[in-house]
């Protein structure tokens, strides 16, 4: 409890970034109330918060968030596994990199929203398409980071394991994979943000599911408060996911940070 109070006090130091966020919120409220921005599409934050509270209590927003997160995590899991597998192949085999590299580099820069219409053609409008979109977004950061991590594993570590007669498969699980984990985690952090964005974009384009669809529906219904409530939900969601990820990262590769390698 005391620790919590201490943390809260620390969080509100004059130099804390929280003040800027609160200041921006205040600017939002004032700009809408005083007519600095004179449009029904710019409602005061207090009214947005009221709409957010109402739709949260009614259960609509929690349900939408749950369905969006379920799709995002399903895609993230699939994309992560495929990305790590492909990254290991790329990192371990020059031939694989030579053969598949140009294709990957050609596909990687394509903005995912641009390929959603053809994906609708092949995968439909439901979860299959949306999960695939999240998976494809997660795939590339994991692939590049895993491959890079594999190439960066210190030769000394491998040589030492070999000297001690550690068999190949054990070397993979005890030396190589732990050594590339920081790289994988860095890729995963990028993938997490991308997967949330692309899942919501896919929901905005097709089907009647998730926060993305709610956002567009409210926009077209002229209900600006509800629309910004969805935007706020996405902002908080992105922030919470990132904080949660950092917490997991600190614990899963504590040795890496203990070695003072987090800059």
């Amino acid at each position, binding site marked *: 409890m005391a620790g919590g109070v201490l943390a809260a006090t620390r969080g509100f130091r004059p130099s804390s970034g929280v003040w800027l966020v609160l200041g921006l919120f205040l600017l939002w409220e004032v700009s809408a109330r005083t007519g600095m921005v004179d*449009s*029904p*599409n710019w409602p005061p934050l207090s009214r947005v918060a009221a709409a957010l509270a109402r739709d949260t209590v009614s259960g609509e927003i929690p349900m939408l968030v749950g369905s969006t997160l379920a799709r995002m995590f399903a895609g993230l899991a699939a994309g992560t596994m495929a990305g790590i597998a492909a990254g290991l192949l790329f990192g371990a085999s020059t031939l694989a990199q030579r053969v598949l590299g140009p294709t990957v580099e050609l596909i990687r820069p394509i903005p995912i929203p641009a390929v959603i*219409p053809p994906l*609708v*053609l*092949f995968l*439909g*409008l439901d979860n299959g398409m949306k999960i695939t979109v999240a998976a494809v977004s997660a795939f590339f950061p994991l692939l590049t980071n895993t491959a890079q991590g594999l190439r960066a594993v210190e030769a000394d570590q491998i040589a030492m394991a070999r000297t001690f007669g550690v068999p190949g498969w054990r070397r993979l699980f005890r030396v190589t994979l732990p050594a590339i984990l920081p790289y994988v985690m860095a890729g995963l952090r990028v993938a997490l943000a991308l997967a949330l964005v692309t899942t919501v974009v896919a929901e905005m*384009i*097709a*089907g*009647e599911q998730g926060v993305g*669809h709610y956002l*567009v*529906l*409210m*926009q*077209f*219904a*002229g*209900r600006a408060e*509800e629309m910004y409530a969805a935007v706020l939900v996405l902002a908080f969601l992105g922030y919470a996911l990132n904080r949660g990820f950092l917490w997991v990262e600190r614990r899963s590769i504590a040795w890496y940070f203990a070695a003072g390698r987090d800059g």
Partner: protein
Amino acid sequence: MTEFTRRAALGATMGGALALPLAAPALRAQALTKMRVSVIPVLDVAPLHAAIAQNYFAAEGIEVDTSSTAGGATGLPGLVAGQYRVTFSNTVSALLGVREGLDFRFISGAARSLAQPPDTMAILVRKGSGITTGKQLEGKRVASNTRNNIVWLRGMAWIDKTGGDFKRVTTVEVPFPQMADALAGGQIDAGLFSEPFVTSALETHGDKLERIGWIIQETAPSSSIAQYVAMKEDLDKNGEVFERFVRALHRGTDWVNAAAGKPELLQLVANFTRVPLERLQKVAFTAYPKEVTTAEIAEMIATMTKFGLGGRYPAPADLIFRTAKA
């Protein structure tokens, strides 16, 4: 398993196999045919939602699953891909697909403009801009939600009718929800609005914006706006299913026409569009036709051809499925 029981089992299986075709009609009557329909959350699809709410589809043995996409970007591509059995589409977009060789057929009318104002589409400008005709819009920026759709086409026809050359007007795509702000803020000089955005723009920006024309009513009163579309191949194979679908839909149309102006219709529309009820009370509704006529399709093709969307179109009669014929 003994010889006796094996033979008994075989007999039972054979008997079951023989009895199944006899039982099939009864089973089919019980199982609902699932149909996925692409819609847009606009007033025009009220009959479909009425038919769902009143259980008219269930009475025909059909379970309708609507997929609502604001803007309708995936409606016709989804129909081609087989994701939908039926798509609600504006006439221009459906005909452009037909021109490109896609086998779309109109299975029912959906929305038609009224003979007299108010209209569901209007052109708005800034108050004090002095713009009242299409001639004055030459060299100016006019916003349409999408290029080459019904809103754009009727907007260009209005510009033409009021003395302007549509080729000298710069069309910019602005989504309906942002159009009033863009117009009030001076980013565009005129906007082609559709309901409920006409009402909401005049309600919220009434001091800055004004309506200078009803774009459909002044160019083509009682003309085609939108239909329900299906693929020819599906209709050839499953015509009977679509007959049942349209029968239920038309009962929904009757319900909506009977409830015109009544609170139950406004509540139904508020439920699926999420537009606040108090705004819907001021909004203009379309006419809800059941049939599609060759004359309205011919008029549309002629207008499209005049405004640069010409090409090889089949005879209008070939595009209308029997369920949409008067």
